[in-house]
């Protein structure tokens, strides 16, 4: 036998004017999301950047990837006087093994922005020399690897991190930044 339950509507705590204002703001927010993804520039001209930023959420994977991009670092070893690969994952512990870590994100957004690359250079050198004072570096090369995507239906080997030198020559290397030789020399000669 069914048990009857009395209807009771939860009373809103917010005053009517606030709920109405929130409804208008909510409608503008939803419209801004839609317009931004539809390619309209109207939102750009109306909302300041810090607010617009929160409406740029719907353009999810619109383009096909031509290659899988890996961002890598070669460090200038003060002891050997040459560039060798530096595994920077321990220096960026937030999601260190995937492309959501700060190094991959910084390179993704700013690989053509010299001020950011110089800041990355300074951070990497300081962090590496602090963590491994016996393996000091004086500078870095920041590069990308373009790993070809196999044809559809042929997934290839499971994706995993491997050193640059283990990639075949068909994987293109592109160098975006190299620390100037004089700066490398100064850092290597500086106090540890």
């Amino acid at each position, binding site marked *: 036998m069914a048990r*009857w339950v009395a*209807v009771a509507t939860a009373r809103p705590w917010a005053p009517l004017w606030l709920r109405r204002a929130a409804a208008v703001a909510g409608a503008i927010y939803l419209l801004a999301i839609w317009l931004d993804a539809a390619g309209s520039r109207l939102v750009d001209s109306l909302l300041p*950047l810090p607010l617009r930023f929160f409406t740029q959420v719907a353009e999810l994977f619109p383009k096909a990837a031509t290659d899988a991009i890996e961002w890598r670092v070669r460090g200038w070893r003060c002891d050997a006087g040459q560039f060798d690969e530096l595994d920077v994952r321990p220096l*960026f512990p*937030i999601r260190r093994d995937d492309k959501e870590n700060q190094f991959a994100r910084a390179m993704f957004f*700013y690989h053509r922005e010299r001020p950011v690359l110089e800041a990355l250079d300074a951070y990497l050198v300081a962090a590496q020399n602090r963590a491994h004072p016996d393996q000091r570096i004086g500078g870095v090369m920041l590069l990308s690897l373009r790993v070809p*995507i196999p044809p*559809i239906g042929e997934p290839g080997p499971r994706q995993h991190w491997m050193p640059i030198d283990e990639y075949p020559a068909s994987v293109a290397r592109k160098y975006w930044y190299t620390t100037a030789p004089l700066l490398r020399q100064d850092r290597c000669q500086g106090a540890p």
Partner: protein
Amino acid sequence: MSDRRLRDWLTEPQPIERLALLRIAIPLSVLGFLSSRLLHADHWLGPAGFHVPDLGGDWRQPLYVAPMSAGAAWAVATAIAVSGLCLSAGLATQPAAATFALLVGYTTLADRLEAFTVNKLAPVLTLALFLAPSGARYGVDAWWRRKRDSHSPRPTEVEGGVIRFFQLFLCIMYSASGIAKARGDWRTHQVLWTHLHDEYQTQIAWLIMGALPGWLWWALQWLVLVFEVGAPLWFALPRTRSLALIIGLGMHMMIGLMFGPVVWFALLMGSILYACYGPLPVLANGAARARERGNRQDARDARG
């Protein structure tokens, strides 16, 4: 649709279980996403990590926020975790929602590198929960209220506005995303396949990629495109709503299984989808029966 019909639709009472489910699921999904950042707060917000310098109005940097001290970073991370858990549990619901929204919004602006769809959506979704009576049922606040006054009625419904906001949000989000895909490569290139070949690739993704025939990737891609572009229609029409719900949940499940860290986005959207359009047969049966009883009483009154 006339103004009156629109207003009636917007304010039509909804089962309170929908709101309770949103209140439980949204902060947990966001906290799941943020967990790897919260555990390294000194790198995320403090001086230990890398921070993009002030680029003076660069479009990729919506606001420059200087890194905070390590102590402040850990305090912010702790406050985010505590307020998110309190909101989910319905404990001090309104203060918790306001705190969570503000702090997640701040941290999203503070570190552009760690800003993704989940934490860009979180402040607005949580503000919606803040403005609604989200702690009225199924939480510590509600339990405490009943304990103090056992005669106080248990709410079974909530004014429809907040649920309508979340329902519209889903339709707009899917539709906007579908339009962006249609304007991009989804009609002409195989996109799904190409995005499964980087560090997002999971073991399950790799196994599925080896098992599915090539033509099925195109079928899945077109299914997603048609679902997303037409979402407002599929969810507006009662006949297609159930199928749209199944396809949407299936899509989010596949994203969660195959795209590594995107699992938190899948959980967030999937739970909002179920809370907004799911049948909620067990949780909502009380409200439905009460409405039915009201209708019968109205009919008896009309006859008498």
